[in-house]
């Protein structure tokens, strides 16, 4: 193809930023754009290159995009299409310093409304930052030369602090939000065993804590043993869809087309969900060990961990752990000396909830817009780069390690309890524990508070009233009750919060996070939000009944005709609230 460029030139800083990802520029004779296969094969480095530009310059200029177009043989229009897809990439000049403050449901439930009321215009509002157990949260970023850059999550946060950050006050250390889960010290913990202890920072430390035993055993006994163990443990995915992990892995292992890929989905962006962040930050070696096992059991040579961009600490720890494991021979040409070749690459999201949807995630890694693909074909047949791919949630991977223990099982599950409870945080409980017992484990509601509702499963989940506290938290029981455990989010909402505010925030979330590809979701999420606004402000179009009919019809077309799970679930919480609570 011919790449037509605008004539705008990239600055030296921009060229250098791109070179950190794509390597030094090849010799140019000034007339020919090299658009061969070698270049196209680097296409998947588009998003990392855009990040490098964004980090160092603060936005993506035309000259920079032209330069990238030339180096990757991707048209500027397409690069612009990709860049403009992501909330955290800018296609117009921006102030170097940005403070993103969470205005999502869990923080509001925990009382962040006051903070939000005091924020000035300069602070950017953000959807859930995965720090909901702190009750309020901000992400402070500064772009520019490496020494000036900032990328720090702060939680909890006050309006005064936010104003200070915007004036240039330094935010606290990166690790300030790094705390063990409330159950720390409980000897019964399995999934949280290591995360509840001191953070492990070396391969040796990890081995001393019992790490790598599962991988060693797997390498000894072979992929079929892994599949059999995971299957007999009855492990199903923890990313929301509850699909049997062994079945997914087996399908990839047996798929004839090569290569295969193993992908860890660490995009965790579901409202009220932060369990994966805890594991990524405090048990990074385990996540990686299990990804290697996934690679081994699926006949893959290459793995990716796709981490949401709002998790700087998780990224730093994972990157360090990947390098340590490579050094120690647990990643690379012969994992653990067993002759199995496997390596892992860390990829950053760029601010898009939809990129947690598995096929959108593939597109994002491939350097395309994060638009979900139509299924079938399913990822086990045609996934990343069109090849058979096993994609798994972070918690699923950690649960695999438990399943591979002698006598191992998969009988416990993580839940993220947030809102006005005494001890919000990530909790590990046995399947079948009631919602009531889980909330009590988190200390119950703060004194003087009365439960109004629980957002179960995040924005894509349901709003349920106090009458549902007896619900047993298992996939089967939830399904029987017409609910879903979803991501494991349990946002407790007390009487002090206006539930219509919650419903509107959820509706806005879907409107802002829809990729825009299909009509039911692209327009439906907008019409849903508009109708709710009219309804709640007492100005329905026609009668209230008309408005409810419209909402339920929009809900039905979104559920029935949308391409992906985002549109299919975009009305669940809204409808559950309208039917049971409002």
């Amino acid at each position: 193809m011919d790449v037509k460029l605008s004539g705008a030139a990239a600055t030296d800083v921009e060229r250098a930023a791109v070179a950190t990802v794509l390597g030094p520029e090849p010799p140019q004779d000034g007339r020919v754009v090299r658009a061969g296969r070698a270049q196209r094969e680097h296409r998947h480095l588009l998003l990392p290159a855009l990040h490098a530009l964004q980090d160092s310059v603060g936005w993506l200029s035309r000259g920079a995009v032209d330069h990238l177009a030339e180096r990757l043989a991707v048209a500027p229009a397409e690069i612009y299409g990709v860049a403009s897809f992501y909330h955290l990439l800018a296609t117009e000049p921006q102030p170097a310093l940005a403070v993103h403050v969470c205005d999502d449901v869990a923080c509001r439930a925990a009382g962040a409304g006051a903070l939000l009321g005091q924020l000035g215009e300069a602070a950017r509002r953000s959807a859930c930052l995965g720090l909901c157990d702190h009750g309020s949260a901000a992400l402070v970023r500064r772009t520019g030369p490496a020494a000036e850059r900032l990328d720090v999550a702060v939680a909890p946060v006050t309006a005064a602090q936010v104003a200070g950050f915007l004036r240039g006050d330094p935010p606290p250390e990166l690790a300030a939000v790094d705390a063990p889960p409330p159950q720390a010290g409980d000897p019964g913990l399995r999934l949280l065993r290591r995360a509840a202890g001191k953070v492990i920072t070396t391969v040796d430390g990890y081995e001393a804590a019992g790490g790598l035993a599962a991988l060693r055993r797997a390498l000894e006994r072979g992929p079929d043993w892994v599949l059999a163990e995971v299957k007999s443990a009855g492990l199903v995915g923890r990313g929301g869809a509850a699909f049997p992990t062994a079945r997914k892995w087996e399908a990839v292992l047996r798929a004839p087309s090569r290569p295969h890929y193993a992908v860890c989905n660490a995009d965790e962006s579901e409202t009220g969900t932060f369990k994966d962040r805890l594991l990524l930050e405090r048990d990074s070696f385990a996540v990686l060990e299990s990804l290697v096992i996934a690679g081994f059991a699926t006949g893959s040579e290459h793995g990716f961990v796709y981490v949401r961009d709002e998790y700087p600490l998780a990224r730093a720890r994972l990157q360090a752990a990947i390098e340590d494991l490579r050094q120690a021979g647990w990643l690379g040409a012969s994992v653990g000396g067993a002759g199995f070749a496997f390596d892992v690459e860390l990829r950053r999201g760029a601010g898009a909830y939809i990129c947690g949807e598995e096929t959108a995630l593939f597109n994002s890694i491939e350097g395309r817009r994060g638009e979900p693909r139509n299924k079938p074909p399913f990822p086990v047949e045609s996934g990343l780069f069109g090849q058979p791919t096993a994609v798994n949630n972070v918690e699923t991977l950690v649960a695999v390690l438990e399943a591979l223990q002698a006598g191992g099982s998969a009988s416990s599950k993580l839940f993220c309890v947030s809102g006005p409870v005494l001890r919000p945080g990530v909790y590990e409980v046995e399947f079948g524990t009631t919602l009531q017992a889980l909330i009590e484990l988190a200390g119950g509601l703060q004194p003087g508070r009365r439960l109004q509702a629980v957002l179960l499963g995040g924005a894509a989940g349901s709003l349920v009233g106090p009458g549902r506290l007896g619900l047993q938290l298992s996939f089967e029981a939830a399904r029987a009750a017409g609910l879903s455990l979803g991501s494991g989010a349990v946002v407790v909402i007390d009487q002090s919060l206006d539930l219509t505010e919650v419903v509107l925030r959820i509706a806005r979330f879907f409107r802002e996070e829809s990729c825009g590809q299909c009509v039911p979701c692209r327009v439906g999420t907008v019409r849903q939000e508009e109708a709710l606004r009219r309804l709640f402000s007492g100005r329905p179009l026609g009668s209230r009944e008309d408005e409810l009919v419209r909402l339920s019809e929009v809900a039905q077309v979104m559920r029935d005709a949308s391409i992906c799970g985002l549109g299919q679930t975009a009305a669940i919480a809204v409808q559950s609230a309208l039917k049971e609570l409002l």
Partner: protein
Amino acid sequence: MSARVALSIDGRDVQVASGTTLREACQVVGIEIPTLCFNPNFSAANACRLCVVELEGARTLVPACSRRVESGMRIQTGSDRVRLSRRLVLELLGSSVDLSVAHELGELMQEYGARPERFADGEAATVQQPVKIDNELYVRDYSRCVLCYRCVQACGVEAQNTFAIWVSGRGFEARISTEYDAPLPDSACVYCGNCIEVCPTGALMFKSEFDLREAGTWDEGRQSTTTTICSYCGVGCSLDLVVQDNQIVRVNSPEGNDITLGNLCIKGRFGHQFVSGPKRRGR
């Protein structure tokens, strides 16, 4: 691919070759499935969801334009559930996009009883924006764009390989755009007009047609179509010249034509002024 697959469509048993889409299988039994983003020459964009049908046992409806037949499938093409989804897709589009020259959609709206005005209270968001007139050959009125992806496909690997336009932004803010929304003359566009050919809503329109419409003199009743062969090069592309008042107002190439598959280059598409030029012999 010669294996036959048996399925049932609206209660009728059908056998088709494996690899057939549900839409094609429906055609075999004489059922036309409405489509919008589908173009037979391109891979399915799967974006509009107008073509959904009910597949027994499936959690959601499925797109007939792309879903391949599997043996034992039981399909309903006109159930209440299907009709509701189609009506809503039409209403959602009709309430956010100017469909005044999208005649086929207008007919479907009637057929499905779609009433987009139910959603339009004056404050409802629309994709309304100024028309882009930045060259002499064609205009882009994205207030009429349903985001079917067909123009992007036509400009990209499916046909033209020029990549002048792409989808930018996201969600309801997603738009078809050149890089940084640059005017077409500054973009990679080579004015092949293949995007105009596939645009189902008139968002992309010949300048000649646009001017007549603006002047209120566009009149399909006074138009005739003459099929001919492009006189420029040896490929011999088929042209359909749309003529009004003895002036060529639009040049199409039939989508089903084996030579062009609907595609032309700038010369065939726009280089017809000589036909009515003042120096033409015999004038």
